[in-house]
């Protein structure tokens, strides 16, 4: 069908929204409550447009097109209406931009600029609320909240946690954790999906920048950074590169210029995780269970299982997540190798994830010293780069330090949902066939952005049924099957965040489907271009086993690289 959009005739699919058509046609309409892939709520009204005929203002994100519709998206009346909405939001807002972590990347601030809000047109009582900083991963400043509801929807509909919701109504309404408690006392899994979807500075990660700068400035400390697979395809966005640009070399040199003494690659221990996890899987298959084995590299997912399905904790792989393995090795293997006391090593993980902040302070992850001392998100690293006065675009490309800097394409794809499974299958093939690599390493059933991917692979005499799930809403049915004893699977990968780490809670804001797609493509490009694409071919990992750990799954490996879990209350 045809509609007239700002005087131009354009084609539209029956049933699609005005906003959709406008975006396709390159017409910008501001949105706040709208989320692609979710049904519209039409609550903020900033996307208002004028429809001739009814002569009315309608929310374009929720309004379907009809034949010969005449729409104006930028008439004086529309702009006036939008400006009023912005002015009302501003009137009930702290207007703290000078001190706000979101300044410069805030959707409300951007709107005030685009609509020329230059005066306080409305003045009145402002909502007051206390900030909530008790969670180890996420901080809330409810006064900055504009009640768009994006965090609530992602937490309920995509994560099926529902730790937060709207409370009260009218002037008093706000978004709060259950019973208006602090976020750390409700079963929030710290995934940060709420943070990465918040348009303003109401939700942020708990910053570790201060500790990290202190460690860097302390000359007695050997400060070591490790970089997760999903950072290198997202950090550039903070500095205006194309979505998903691969900036591995610049990331490494930026970390060195900031003052890190060593820069290692978490992809190294991703390879290591595959060796340990594949060994554990072989072992479970021989012993007859418990299967399906569930991956354990996503700490938000682990916390979810501990809260909501504690009876299935035995199905969870005992492997620590890769950055925790790396931390444990840095303070043992590496410390010994270079003759530095582990008390003088400070490990900083650069992660796309807020749950890793919570994970790092789990008491069981570490011996005398915590495996990982601080976790900074992609966003925090970008802030540190700016604070250090570094021009990101002029940085040279540099490589990681050895030996915990070598990695294969299999480690790289940990960053995308399905990647752990694909990497594991490559190595399982090697083990099950007694030493041959897969002919074609690309395992396409595990690629793509679907929430649940499943496949059957026959390797030698074994037939493995595997699945990869991301976004916790998708995992419930599979877990209920395991509970009922009817799960057909041997091995299931679970990532808390929809799309995996590339879309993690610590990534550049805001999260969009386009960014997710581009970053995912880049992850697979890194794999494709790697000289080695099998975890068991990582020579530094092999060396680690011969020099230090012994066999995969050995006693020493168990001491350092594996962990246990705890049952937590559902509420």
């Amino acid at each position, binding site marked *: 069908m045809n509609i007239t959009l700002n005087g131009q005739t354009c084609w539209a699919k029956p049933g699609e929204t005005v906003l959709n058509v406008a975006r396709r046609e390159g017409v910008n309409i501001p949105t706040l409550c709208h989320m692609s892939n979710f049904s519209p709520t039409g609550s903020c009204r900033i996307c208002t447009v004028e429809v001739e005929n009814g002569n009315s203002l309608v929310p374009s994100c929720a309004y379907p097109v009809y034949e010969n519709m005449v729409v104006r998206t930028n008439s004086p009346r529309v702009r006036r209406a939008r400006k009023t909405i912005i002015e009302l939001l501003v009137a009930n807002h702290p207007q703290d931009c000078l001190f706000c972590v979101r300044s410069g990347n805030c959707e409300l601030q951007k709107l005030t600029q685009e609509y020329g809000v230059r005066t306080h047109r409305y003045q009145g009582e402002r909502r007051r609320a206390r900030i909530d900083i008790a969670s180890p991963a996420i901080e809330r400043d409810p006064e900055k909240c504009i009640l768009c509801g994006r965090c609530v929807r992602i937490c*309920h509909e995509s994560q099926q*946690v*529902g*730790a*937060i*919701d*709207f*409370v*009260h*109504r009218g002037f008093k309404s706000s978004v*709060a*954790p*259950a*019973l*208006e408690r602090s976020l750390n006392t*409700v079963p929030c899994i710290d995934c940060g999906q709420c943070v990465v979807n918040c348009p303003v500075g109401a939700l942020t990660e708990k910053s570790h920048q201060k500790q990290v700068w202190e460690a860097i400035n302390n000359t007695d400390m050997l400060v070591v950074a490790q970089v997760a697979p999903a950072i290198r395809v997202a950090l550039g966005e903070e500095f205006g590169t194309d979505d998903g640009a691969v900036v591995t070399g610049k990331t490494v040199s930026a970390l060195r210029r900031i003052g890190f003494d060593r820069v290692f690659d978490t992809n190294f221990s991703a390879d290591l995780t595959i060796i340990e996890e594949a060994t554990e899987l072989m072992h479970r298959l021989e012993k007859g269970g418990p299967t399906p084995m569930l991956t354990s590299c996503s700490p938000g997912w682990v916390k979810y299982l501990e809260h909501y399905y504690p009876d299935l904790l035995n199905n969870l792989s005992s492997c620590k997540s890769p950055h925790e393995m790396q931390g444990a090795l840095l303070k043992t293997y590496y410390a010994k190798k270079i003759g530095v006391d582990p008390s003088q090593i400070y490990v900083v993980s650069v992660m796309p994830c807020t749950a890793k902040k919570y994970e790092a302070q789990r008491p069981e992850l570490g011996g005398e010293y915590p495996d990982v001392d601080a976790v900074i998100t992609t966003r925090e690293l970008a802030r540190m780069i700016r604070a250090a006065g570094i021009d990101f675009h002029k940085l040279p490309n540099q490589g990681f330090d050895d030996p915990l800097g070598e990695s294969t394409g299999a480690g790289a794809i940990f960053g995308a949902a399905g990647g752990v499974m694909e990497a594991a299958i490559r190595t399982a093939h090697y083990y099950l066939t007694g030493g041959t690599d897969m002919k074609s390493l690309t395992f396409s059933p595990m690629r793509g952005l679907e929430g649940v991917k499943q496949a059957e692979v026959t390797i030698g005499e074994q037939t493995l049924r595997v699945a990869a799930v991301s976004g916790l809403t998708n995992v419930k049915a599979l877990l209920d099957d395991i509970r009922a004893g009817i799960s057909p699977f041997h091995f299931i990968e679970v990532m808390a965040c929809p799309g995996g780490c590339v879309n993690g809670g610590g990534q550049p804001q805001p999260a969009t489907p386009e960014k997710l797609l581009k970053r995912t493509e880049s992850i697979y490009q890194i794999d494709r271009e790697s000289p080695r694409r099998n975890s068991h071919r990582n020579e530094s990992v092999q060396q680690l086993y011969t020099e230090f750990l012994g066999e995969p799954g050995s006693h020493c490996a168990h001491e350092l690289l594996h962990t246990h879990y705890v049952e937590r209350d*559902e*509420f």
Partner: protein
Amino acid sequence: MSNREKLLEIDRHNKRNIMQTQDNTQRIFRTYPSGDASCLIDMLQEVQEHFGYLPDLEMQKVARHVDIPVSRVYGVATFYNQFRFQPLGKFVIKVCRGTACHVKGSFSILTTLESELGIKAGQTTKDLLFTIETVACIGACSIAPVIAVNDEFHGGLTTKSLQKLLKSWQRQCTESEVSDECV
């Protein structure tokens, strides 16, 4: 009934409630099918009827029963004015905020009460003696500004006379505690 008798009556009522609590909630949960969120409001109403308010623990039980997150149960409950989240005090003070009372200064009556008792409208003092509530109009405009205390009206109030009233209630409470101990 004198005020004192009323107080004793409330005490007895509360004790009865506490004793029956266990049975009552079990009955509520039996009445409603589990996993059916459409019963949420009905269940909350029944829970409130038995406790006089919605205790946190009961909201958690309701959430589990109808299989939705606690945050949503709490969100729904706080949306409606009919639900309370603290037990009622012995003295439930309803401050009329209707137009006539407003003109006659009911706002300062409310703020005086709030500052004297150290709580906000909708809350109950820690010692469970006083609850402040606001109502739109209680239909006694001729004696504005007016408050209703356990459904007994006090009109033509000034901040002075209000303070006097508060003192007398506080006195009654200490007396009734003494008499309780004697029983």
